[in-house]
């Protein structure tokens, strides 16, 4: 047996090249010959092909001989063999669940493709596609995101189209009344030559429902409606207590969890001491890490239920998809 194997190894090393040169052959190896679908005890040279073609359509040079140096061959159909891709790779077309980001951020996750005014657009978070309110409409979105090697213009996949501004606590107020009062106050300060000036800041920012944004692809051929390692979205469903969920994200790939809380009001930290209050959120156990933001959250039946955007050591915080869709005027 070991002798057989060594003998076939040396035969294969001589003939490997001319076997691989034949049409459709993608791999050669040594295995047990299969006859009529059943494995036999006979060692043979296995040629893997993208597709099996009837012998009548092949010339003698194209056909794999039934034996090589008196060692039998077997032909099996494997299809095209591809390198396994990971979510931080470059994908064209790009599915949901892979790395994406505004040029000025690190990287987040491309949630999924949704429809805005008849056109397919990328859905992810504001803090992934719009740099937490700091971006301009039309800014470049890269796939993969900058942290994963994405660069401009080679990996420019889309342009920022729209984002829902996040209201942070303690940021300058837009209240016209308060600002008018304080400018009168500051005028007074100036009149008495004081160097002190006052600014109105929000003690309690408006409630946020979503951290969401969309981006339009430069090339419609770059759209892949599937979610990486999950498949096709089968509609939407409203998140409920106890619902089993899953997501496919840039950092932790496909993970599963359960909705443990609904109607959640939570304070979320956005680096640099910025805090934003979110209401009507879904809360699940730990199923994400930094870089998974923007992941589409689906139920067991692949129905879209939320947009992942934040988490702690033990929890994951998810926007309700119905709030995301209505805030951006989008649909599946």
């Amino acid at each position: 047996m070991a002798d057989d194997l060594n003998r076939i190894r040396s035969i294969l090393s001589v003939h490997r090249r001319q076997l691989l040169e034949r049409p459709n052959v993608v791999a050669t190896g040594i295995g047990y010959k299969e006859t009529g679908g059943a494995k036999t005890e006979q060692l043979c040279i296995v040629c893997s092909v993208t597709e099996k073609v009837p012998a009548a359509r092949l010339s003698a040079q194209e056909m794999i001989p039934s034996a090589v140096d008196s060692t039998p061959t077997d032909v099996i159909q494997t299809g095209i063999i591809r390198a396994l891709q990971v979510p931080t790779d470059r994908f064209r077309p790009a599915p949901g669940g892979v790395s994406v980001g505004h040029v000025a951020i690190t990287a987040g996750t491309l949630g999924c493709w949704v429809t805005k005014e008849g056109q397919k657009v990328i859905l992810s978070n504001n803090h992934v596609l719009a740099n937490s309110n700091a971006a301009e409409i039309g800014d470049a979105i890269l796939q993969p995101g900058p942290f994963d090697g994405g660069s401009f213009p080679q990996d420019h996949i889309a342009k920022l189209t729209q984002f829902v501004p996040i209201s942070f606590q303690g940021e300058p107020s837009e209240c016209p009344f308060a600002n008018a009062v304080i400018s009168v106050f500051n005028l007074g300060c100036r009149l008495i030559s004081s160097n002190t000036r006052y600014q109105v800041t929000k003690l309690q920012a408006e409630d946020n429902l979503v951290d969401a944004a969309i981006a339009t692809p430069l090339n419609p051929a770059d759209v892949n409606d599937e979610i990486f390692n999950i498949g096709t979205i089968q509609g939407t469903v409203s998140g409920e207590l106890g619902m089993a969920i899953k997501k496919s994200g840039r950092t932790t790939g496909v993970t599963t969890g359960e909705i443990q809380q609904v109607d959640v009001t939570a304070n979320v930290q956005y680096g640099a001491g910025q805090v934003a209050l979110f209401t009507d959120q879904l809360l699940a156990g730990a199923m994400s890490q930094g870089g998974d933001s923007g992941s589409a959250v689906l139920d067991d039946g692949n129905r879209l239920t939320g947009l992942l955007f934040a988490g702690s050591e033990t929890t994951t915080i998810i926007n309700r998809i119905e709030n995301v869709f209505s805030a951006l005027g989008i649909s599946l």
Partner: protein
Amino acid sequence: MRIVAICTVILIPLLALGDDADMSPSILDVKKQHEAQFLKMAGVVSVGIGLDSDGNQAIVVGLDGSHPDTESSIPATLEGFPVVVQTIGSIRAQ
């Protein structure tokens, strides 16, 4: 701005009527009524509706770490609904 103000003036009595029609407040009403006060307490980062250890609907208060003072000032029940305190850590955008 004026339209919002007018809408609010019209809506407030309507909402109040809705509340009066239903005598016993729902867990959502109770949570909404108390969450601002919870979120002011040291270490509170979230308030939601989940389940207690017996599987009953409960108001769940999340803390970013150990805060004995906060924990001792949160009641075990509110208007008949259980209140559960969990340490979940700080919530960060990911």
